[in-house]
């Protein structure tokens, strides 16, 4: 371990703000890149199900009408 104690580790010899700021931005970028496609997938699935239901309903009403 390069550092003597955990507080030393956080302080980073006075440069703590910079180091941890940089690493948190990195974390944010990583999180964005992982979460963004997952969110899109959820939206896609929801949209797909909605379209499927809509087409089923249309199909049924068409069949009902032609059955008359």
């Amino acid at each position, binding site marked *: 371990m390069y550092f003597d104690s955990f507080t030393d580790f956080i302080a980073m010899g006075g*440069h703590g703000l910079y*180091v941890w700021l940089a690493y948190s*931005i*990195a974390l944010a*970028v*990583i999180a964005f*890149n992982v979460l963004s496609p997952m969110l*899109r997938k959820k939206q896609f699935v929801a949209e797909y199900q909605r379209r499927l239901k809509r087409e089923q309903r249309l199909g049924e009403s068409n069949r009902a009408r032609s059955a008359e």
Partner: protein
Amino acid sequence: MANTWKMPAWFYRLGSPRWSFEIMGKLLPWFAVATLALLSCGLVWGLAFAPADYQQGNSFRIIYIHVPAAILAQSCYILMAVAGAISLIWKMKVADMVAKSCAPIGASLAVLALATGAIWGKPTWGTWWVWDARLTSMLILLFLYIGVYTLHSAIENEVTAGKAGAVLALVGVVNIPIIKYSVEWWNTLHQGSTFTLTESPKMAPEMWMPLLIMVLGFYGFFSVVLMLRTRIEILQRERRAGWVKELMEAH
């Protein structure tokens, strides 16, 4: 026109969106595990165990993010251009989707490289920003990414948008060496200081080994995220296909 060179069979198989979707699904867990291993190892090593730099102190540790982000931002653009070229030459849809997925990932990595570069600069030279060759080139790369992304989102038709984006990416990739050269020349012209962020002439193995691991980890991360995005893009574009319907119904 289309098949000017003979490519191996798997190359053509990639042209099937369904096959690409499935193979990426199989590869994802492996890449994800490898990425997590590499990144956690590299982070712990770099943050806690590697020695601090003699001159820069502990702010030096930002290198373990800055350099991988910069390398990946550049590799991603090249991949985007290559994928665009493949989609134009072989008319391969999947290549198109890969290229489109690269743009936001590359842009975010360029932003990360710039932000960490600026944060690193503050304790090192006292200012948040310097117009040196590296950072300026990275800024221009970010502009190129934003251009491709904006072009994609501005064109309604997905196929046309892909083609236009591919052309722009290719023009950009040809321009990158020219831009780099001219920015470096401009930098020597206005030479203020000769500092470069990462060129410490000698880096001890205890310093560059965690860096290497982080670079590999970032490549892994990039592959994972690219596959995630491309799979969604495939689903989106192929939403009318039968296999997508079966997949959705199985959900």
